[in-house]
């Protein structure tokens, strides 16, 4: 199993990122002089500058994925739940989910509320997780109120270059950062790789991570929507057409200096790239840019279809282009 597969298949809903952290920590062994976990759970790997003139650059990708949190166990052993992060209710019924301890369940829905039989969107209130139990007592030995489940869908290749799986948002970003750490030989710059927690509930990890590091520049690496499927919402980003350099999203406007620099590098290296304007959604960069006296920030996005579903789809060529561009940024700096 490749690293991308291991990362995407891992359990790691928002607030419960430790498994993913463990995987990344192992990969980074020997690559960075200093690897540590901060209080909120961010994994931070540091490659100190070789020169005093080096710029302090923070690369950030989030480890967490959206999940479901148990709110009630009914007398027949069905688990009621609500969302952690931006879960689309209509995508949840009949999915498989897994808890930290391996307990697996299927999401059921009260038949009268099933979307196919009634108009309107289903609500989390009418759904439940079925772990095959007959009563509350037997379930309580495995699951308690407050436990968080992640979706469990194994990653697959839908062609030689395209993968589909859960949590590509944003394990693919984590993968990019790890690859950069592996490729980066030497740099005069001070590089911090931040694998952040709790992005899906509002960039909470990135905010505290950036506070401690106080970088001059930050780049978030995350997924972005595309407009390349039938009847898609108009958006000029496509899977397979290269790394997306963010122009703006609903919480963030890229500093033009950063944007131009990224585009210039991409052109120089002949890395296919596109410019992204995301109308709904944001990334860790929205929070990093406002920390302390402000951080000059940008975002590189991997174009991804069906974000926040159990089969997010992206193209490995885009991923490799992102890695190449990031590695170049780490070597050359951003000003």
């Amino acid at each position, binding site marked *: 199993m490749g690293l991308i597969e291991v990362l995407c298949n891992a359990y790691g809903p928002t607030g419960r990122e430790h498994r993913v952290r463990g995987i990344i920590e192992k990969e980074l062994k020997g690559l960075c002089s200093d690897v540590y976990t901060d209080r909120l759970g961010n994994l931070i790997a540091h490659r100190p500058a070789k020169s005093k003139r080096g710029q302090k650059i923070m690369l950030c990708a989030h480890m967490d994925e959206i999940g479901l*949190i148990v*709110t009630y166990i009914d007398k027949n052993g069905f688990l009621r739940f609500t969302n952690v992060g931006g879960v689309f209710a209509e995508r949840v019924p009949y999915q498989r989910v897994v808890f930290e301890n391996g307990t697996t369940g299927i999401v059921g829905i009260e038949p009268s509320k099933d979307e196919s039989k009634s108009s309107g969107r289903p609500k989390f209130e009418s759904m439940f997780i079925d772990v095959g139990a007959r009563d509350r007592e037997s379930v309580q030995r495995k699951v308690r109120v407050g436990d968080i489940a992640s979706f469990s869908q194994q990653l697959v290749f839908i062609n030689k270059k395209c993968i589909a799986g859960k949590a590509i948002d944003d394990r693919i970003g984590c993968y990019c950062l790890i690859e950069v750490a592996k490729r980066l030989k030497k740099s005069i710059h001070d590089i911090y790789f931040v694998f952040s927690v709790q992005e899906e509930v509002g960039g909470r990890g990135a905010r505290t*991570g950036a506070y401690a590091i106080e970088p001059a520049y930050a780049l978030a690496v995350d997924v972005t929507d595309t407009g390349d499927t039938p009847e898609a919402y108009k958006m000029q980003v496509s899977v397979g057409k290269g790394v997306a350099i963010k122009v703006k999203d609903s919480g963030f406007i890229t500093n033009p200096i950063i944007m131009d620099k990224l585009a210039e590098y991409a052109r120089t290296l002949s890395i296919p790239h596109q410019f992204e304007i995301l109308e709904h959604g944001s990334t860790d960069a929205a929070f990093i840019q406002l920390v302390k006296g402000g951080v000059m920030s940008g975002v590189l996005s991997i174009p991804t279809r069906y974000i926040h579903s159990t089969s997010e789809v992206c193209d490995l060529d885009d991923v490799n282009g992102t890695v190449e561009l990031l590695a170049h940024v780490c070597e050359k700096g951003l000003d």
Partner: protein
Amino acid sequence: MLQDLKELSELNGVSGDEIRVREYIKKRVKKHATQISEDPYGNLIVRKGPEKGPRIMLAAHMDEVGLMITGIEKSGLLRFHAIGMMPNVLMAKRVFIGKDKVLGVMGHKPIHLAKEEELKKMPKTKDLFIDIGMSSKEDASKVVQVGDYASFGTEYRENGDSVQGKAFDNRIGCFILLRMIMESDLPAFYSFTVQEEVGLRGARIAANRVKPDVAIAVDTTSSGEWPDDGDTPQYPALGAGAVVTTADRSVICDEKLVRTIRETAEREKIPYQDKRPMIGGTDAGSMHVAGPGVRSAVISVPARYIHSPLSFASRGDILAVEKLLRCSINNIMGKEREWV
């Protein structure tokens, strides 16, 4: 009688107007504090004990939900803005306005005049008004001005284990911290915060000042019992002990800290229960993302009808929360190295 709770509950202190609560607490803790500081935003931070060891911040907000007068009509009726309350909670209630506590009532059409369709419809908050018995803008303006705060003048009572009053969210939290300051020697930064109800604002600044290693918000939470024949959640329940949060809208609590609190409760046989996940927010939402991040948790007292003129809570639950806080802090202090 929990005298301090009575006093705190009966003080008026809507978000932004916490001065009376702050002054009361300041007076009470004077003899027991190592250091008392007040910040420009209105937070009161009471330090007890030496500065070494893990910096533990306990936060209880002083503000309560309430109303602000936004306009005086020609008719002498008052327009208002409400924070954190539904219109069905406001209908026909008494309110006390401004420093002079001018009596008003939430105006409503009497049954004799209301049309049938009006009886069936719940009004919107924006359609409600306060009547202070005046018949002109001129007269009303003599006793009330735009910007005055208004709150409910509910008297505090006790009935066995049941404590009953207004502003329990979060004077109960203030009361617990106050007791800990006066009756124990636990080193901590006891923080009485402002403007929680309008967006966890005070705690954000207080946490920047305290720079804690560990933070616990001490608050109230809606109890979940409700007459219902179905198989529906009925927790947390009054009288069933301290409420421990896993996650709410504002914070996903630190796993290790929550585990420590639960283990402490088990060991000390302190009754505790779960909070309903992902509902509401507390000062922990601000504290955990302060600075480089703070390990944070929330311990609450369950209360019925918070964000209304009258709440019920249990004295036993209040004491359980206090004991759980004390034992948990002792636990943390005992394993100092793990927390700094």
